């Protein structure tokens, strides 16, 4: 027998003849129904949002210093270049960015854009597919115009997220995972580690600085 057959047979034997007594075997529909039942009344098993409105809650979460992110509210896509340059100037960075390839970033006037992200890149910019209000996370799905490394390699990662893409809870995002990209990454704050004596140190392997540009319109 193959390892697969052996393991499945051993699991079935454990379930039907185990010393805890036989577990009732169900058909796939009944299993699915029970699994769905386990997600009933989600409000009983998840925290409240930090504010009534998901966008306000997202902003409030990003203000938590433990996350190590900064956030700037931008009126519309036209106002984005100015907001980006303001951030770069504030951190004494050259007006040079690795861009993800999202066509909405083509209009970043006044910035020297290039691809792909270099291992020692100072700053890069991506557009998040969603934001999650519960945790202050942004989500990216790998795609031709969404390189995962653009979010992982730079010292400063700038990420644009549209207000209309802010979802209330992690569970609301879960539905979108069904599209099955190669990588779906929920990013919550800057990279960090507590591996040396529990001290929190920012910028372990990923970006040490994450700047969220929240676009209203």
């Amino acid at each position, binding site marked *: 027998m193959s*390892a697969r057959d052996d*393991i*499945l047979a*051993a*699991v*079935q034997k*454990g*379930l039907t003849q*185990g*010393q*805890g007594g036989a577990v009732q075997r*169900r058909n796939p529909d009944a299993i699915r129904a*029970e*699994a769905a039942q*386990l*997600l009933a009344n*989600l409000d009983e*098993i*998840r*925290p409240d949002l930090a504010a009534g409105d998901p966008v306000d809650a997202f902003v409030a979460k990003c203000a938590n210093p433990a996350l190590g992110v900064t956030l700037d509210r931008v009126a519309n896509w036209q106002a984005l270049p100015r907001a980006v340059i303001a951030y770069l100037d504030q951190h004494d960075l050259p007006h040079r960015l690795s861009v*993800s390839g999202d066509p909405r970033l083509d209009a970043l006037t006044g910035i020297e854009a290039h691809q792909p992200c270099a*291992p*020692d890149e100072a700053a890069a910019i991506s557009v998040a597919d969603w934001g999650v209000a519960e*945790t202050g996370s942004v989500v990216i799905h*790998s*795609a031709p115009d*969404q*390189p*995962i*490394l*653009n979010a*992982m390699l730079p010292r400063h990662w700038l990420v644009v997220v549209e207000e209309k893409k802010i979802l209330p809870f*992690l*569970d609301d995002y*879960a539905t979108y*995972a*069904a599209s*099955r990209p*190669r*990588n*779906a*990454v*929920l*990013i*919550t704050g800057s*990279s*960090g*580690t*507590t*591996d*040396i*004596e*529990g*001290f929190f*140190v920012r*910028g*372990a*392997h*990923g*970006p040490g600085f994450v700047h969220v540009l929240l676009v209203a319109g």
Partner: protein
Amino acid sequence: MGASAFTQRAHDALADPNLKTAIDRTTGTAETKRAAAVGAFPEFQAARARGAAIKDHVIANLDHYLVEFERNAQAAGAHVHWARDKAEAAEIVTRICKDADAKLVTRAKSMLGEEIGLPHALDDAGIERVETDLAEHIIQLAHERPSHIIWPAMHRTREDVATLFFKDHHPPPDADDPASMVASARRILREKFMSADVGISGANFLIADTGATCTVTNEGNAELSTTPPRVHIVTAGIEKLVPSTDHAMALLRLLVRSATGGEVTQYTTFHSGPKRPGDADGPEEMHIVLVDNGRSRMVGDEFRQMLRCIRCGACMNHCVVYRQIGGHAYGGTYPGPMGAVLTPVLDGLAQSRDLPHACTMNGRCEEVCPVQIPLKTLLKAWRVRSWDSQQEVGPLRMGLGLWGFAARRPRLYHFGTRLALPVMRLFGKGGWIRRMPFAGGWTDTRDLPKPAARSFMSQHANHGNEGPK
């Protein structure tokens, strides 16, 4: 591991003040942060009960979910392999590496990888292995094994880490500054990430209805280990299944709060198959190795509930024994209360019968366990098995036999305690006994309280006489 091996390791650990400092610094912070996170989540108790129910549902239908996961992972383009035991699992991984002509492999921390002996297997196969989790990098430099499932280098103080990095990193970091040490490791490991042929990760969850594997990290090393190389290999225990991404989210809320006191980790990543046509980055091949190694046996015995474990580490952070002796003394892959239940499954009871006994039964572990595993009950089950299989050593069986004989004869028992207490008091000073013949195992590393002037029984008898009739 014989009886003396564990006792010796525990003894050595207790005698090492540096170790105690290191453990206290991290477990203390972990305990405080978890308490704050749980305090800020009033739904925690309800979420725990639901988390336990989700895991029980998965285990009760494990065969169904394994097959569903396999089908969906294959549909996403991943290769799925099955391994009965650790030797088979390590063999599959090294074969995939060799087939890919791999010279350099990066590994993102995975306790399952440790369990199946992957570090050794890769070293033996002559493949350069780079541990990318900062703590794993530290212990790789120190040629050690993890001493905690969340903070593998918990036993190392920052001074120790500075010494290790000073030898290995060029230029060396500033001593005594964790930020400088982290920056130095970032620089060294960055080159490795980009030139690796294969990246190996574990999985915190296997999602049945999408075929994705989920990793959670704070450093971002899983993403950097699995995106640049040509091949991504996942090794995961078969109990990691969950029905859907939604179920994973419910468990994630419990896992992160219990592990580090955060709400979510900085990076929560779902990996599904290789790079899609046109994708900007990603590996060309993805392999998933599903590992049994004793788990299917647990489905059928009294340790089934242990399969709920989501490896958060809270039980060890809150364990009085772990906090005294640290992780290495346990001798297995998994330390602390969960390790004391799992190690006899993985390594055999004869090898590890001391572990279920090295427990005070104070129950802190099961109070904090986010999936309500009855750890005390499971530890007692091992004690019973150990006794039944005559694994107890002679002196213990004899001692307990004598105690049982006396306990059933109250007069004899009282006579014995009346005799013993004055003798013990002779060794006491200022309320504590620092040294006493035949009690070195206790008094070498801690003091024993000096017995009260009169035994409880004699005080009770007197109290009864004074009380109202």
